């Protein structure tokens, strides 16, 4: 079962993971603000994740850990 975790406080909200996700499961949580003052990325539906790690591959800040 795929599991994606975000080190939210390292996220700069650049959104490269959002465009990389083939299932369109990632969004920028506009209503949230992390320690760095950015709105972080988060996964909307963990169940649908296929653990392709495209998001983590494109993340410049090593925010995302992917397991399956």
């Amino acid at each position, binding site marked *: 079962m795929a599991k994606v975790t975000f080190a939210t406080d390292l996220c*700069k909200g*650049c*959104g*490269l993971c959002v465009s*990389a996700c083939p299932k369109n499961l990632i969004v920028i949580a506009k209503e949230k603000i992390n320690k760095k003052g950015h709105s972080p990325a988060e996964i909307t539906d963990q169940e649908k994740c296929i653990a392709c790690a495209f998001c983590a591959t494109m993340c410049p800040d090593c925010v995302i850990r992917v397991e*399956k």
Partner: protein
Amino acid sequence: MVVFEKPKSLTDAPLHYCPGCTHGIIHTLVAQAIDELGIEGTTIGVAPVGCSVLAYNYFKFDMAEAAHGRAPAVATGIKRALPENIVFTYQGDGDLASIGMAETVHAATRNENITVIFVNNAIYGMTGGQMAPTSLPGQVTQTSPYGRDTSTAGFPIRVSEMLATLDGPEYITRVAVNNVKNVRNAKKAIKKAFENQINGKGFSLVEVISSCPTNWGMTPQKALEWIDENMIPYYPLGVYKDRSAEKGEEA
């Protein structure tokens, strides 16, 4: 099972780069290659002057910070002193292709057994977006406010093509990090560039087409698209020199 996690040879220091800057991706690729090859304990990196000047904060192996453009000379010194260690430079386009062009060309022609990671984003980032030796014709920057005029500012330098004309270097390739497929290819190239050094093959340079959303004045995603539309047509991806492959040796 872990599919993707932060490479072990990266420190926990948060990267200072702008949101969406692909330096972070390239740092990750370098660290992954070093982890997979099991060479963290023997690797010595040389950081440049430019946005990645603080790279020494992000890697767990030994690092030296070089003067602007001098990283290949510093790396030459380190490698000649410690031939058993793995030595690489990490340089931007202003550092490598403008002020450090002589050091680059001569390290290549000597076939110094080092690895060079050359990040080309066609602009000076740290100083606020000035024209780089690799800025495209017509590209608007702080010091080419009407667009790079090739009649006065000359043409962009295609470093990989130029270095590939030399007899010296072992491996010269150009990759990009603007989508998943390209990042994966970039990783293979970077790993090969380190393997070449381990195998004593000599100078290996990976030019990585990268973005600068802040100074290009676009969103991170748009910047990646701009690479496809503008950078790659001028800087075609591919292997420009691979001496061992040409000789039919196993890579």
